[in-house]
């Protein structure tokens, strides 16, 4: 089997997604054997412009990054977006909600004009993304699964069912029974329900399923004492860029 050349890139994000690749530990050597990593922002000093598959972390938040992602798009035949920031803009989009100018003012005061910062957008606003490994951080096994699928020529299976399924497979007690709210019923699975496993509510870091019952979720959260504002905040934590579409989806 031929080894595809792979570049792993970091844009605006926390580096956690790339770290999850390094965190593969047991599979890392197999991975290095299966693909040729020619670029890895976080782990390799060398730099290469010769790759077929680009794995991209982070959202686009500067003019400079628009150029970078376009260049990556020109070179790579396949683009895999990893992590909420790259897939949906992620938490970075809270900045958009706050207001770009206001945010610059707050953090950089009089120097704000010097700062290269634009409205945060996910990667697929600028280039075509072939596969998404959602989540904040993404599930490292899902990243492996995508890479493996690309090698053997299979379409990676990305669940389109709610987190509750995995949560129940894992035998968890639903956190609602403990008085904790959870976005599990509308959020896309694939994380192995890691938040409910730790007795915490799902925050929809992988986004929502294709056909979420938003109205039911609102009713439910209301019942647990959340205000409309709280509910929107819950939905928006990782999905502010796409927040509007969540709302529209149920109409």
């Amino acid at each position, binding site marked *: 089997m031929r080894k595809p050349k792979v570049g792993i890139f970091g844009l605006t994000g926390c580096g956690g997604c790339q770290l999850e690749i390094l965190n593969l530990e047991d599979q890392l050597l197999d991975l290095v054997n299966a693909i040729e990593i020619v670029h890895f922002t976080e782990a390799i000093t060398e730099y290469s412009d010769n790759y077929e598959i680009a794995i991209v972390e982070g959202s686009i938040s500067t003019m400079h990054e628009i150029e970078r992602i376009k260049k990556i798009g020109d070179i790579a035949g396949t683009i895999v977006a990893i992590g909420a920031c790259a897939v949906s803009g992620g938490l970075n989009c809270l900045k958009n909600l706050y207001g770009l100018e206001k945010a610059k003012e707050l953090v950089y005061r009089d120097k704000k004009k010097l700062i290269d910062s634009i409205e945060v957008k996910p990667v697929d606003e600028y280039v075509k993304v072939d596969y998404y490994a959602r989540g904040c951080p993404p599930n490292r096994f899902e990243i492996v699964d995508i890479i493996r699928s690309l090698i*053997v*020529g*299979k*379409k990676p299976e990305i669940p389109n069912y709610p987190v509750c399924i995995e949560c129940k497979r894992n035998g968890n007690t639903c956190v609602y029974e403990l008085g904790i709210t959870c976005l599990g019923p509308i959020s896309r699975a694939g994380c192995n329900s890691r938040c409910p496993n730790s007795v915490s509510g799902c925050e929809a870091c992988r986004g929502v399923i294709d056909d979420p019952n938003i109205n039911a979720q609102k009713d439910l959260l209301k019942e647990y004492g959340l205000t409309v504002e709280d509910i929107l905040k819950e939905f928006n934590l990782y999905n502010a860029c796409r927040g509007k579409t969540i709302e529209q989806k149920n109409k």
Partner: protein
Amino acid sequence: MVLGVNAASKNTIYAPDVARITRIEQISPTEKVFKIVFDDEEIKNKFEFKPGQFVELTVFGLGEAPFSIISNPKNRDFFKLCVRNAGSVSRALHNMEEGERVGIRGPFGNGYFPYEKMKNHNVLLIAGGLGLAPLMSLIRYILHYREDYKEIMVIYGAVNPESILFKNEIQYWSNRGDISLCLSVDNPDDKWTGEIGVCTKLIPRVKFPPDDTYAAVCGPPIMYKYVIDELKKKKFKPENIYLSLERRMECGVGKCNHCHIGDKLVCVDGPVFSLWQIKNLKEAI
């Protein structure tokens, strides 16, 4: 727990037997025919199937999917599948080469085309698109024992001339003269001289007496309703109409439940049902 079943076997119904692809033929832009032979002699000798039955084919590392057997049940050394490049497993299969190995479970399906009952009757075969594949085994069997059957008619509709399957075979049928053929395409090209439009429109032309005729039908889900309506108009009896149904299958052996329709499982009770069997099953068609 004493269940009264003998669980001595160390095998599982989910383990495929290894087989070899010995020939690959591209018969249309999206379909290939695969000739398959089991590695193990004993398994090969035991493998026996009836028209309409299917196998579960594993591409190792990729997945499994059900495919109907299209070859004549009389051939015991090999069997053939016709596969459309439609998804993961089928795409991988299309990328394979002669000599490569796959896994096979089966044959499955207790519901098959009743070739015994059809004897001494007319047989009407109606196929849409890839639906011709599951009927191939039946047609080949009948032609093998041609004298046992009365009149035979094949109505076959394809999207366009290019996508017509088994062109050579169809040519051969028309040369034989003892089988009537009605071909139709939705989108003709310049050279097309045959019928145009959905193949259900051809059913009114059938002249067979309904009491003396069996119909075998296979096609995409939307086709069935129209075919049944037309056959009903012709006063065909529901117990004489046989349909091959398609549902999602994970196991093929009646466990995973994905293919159930009411109290029937497509994999073990079908995939071929008489219309009578499923008449009152909501969701069936």
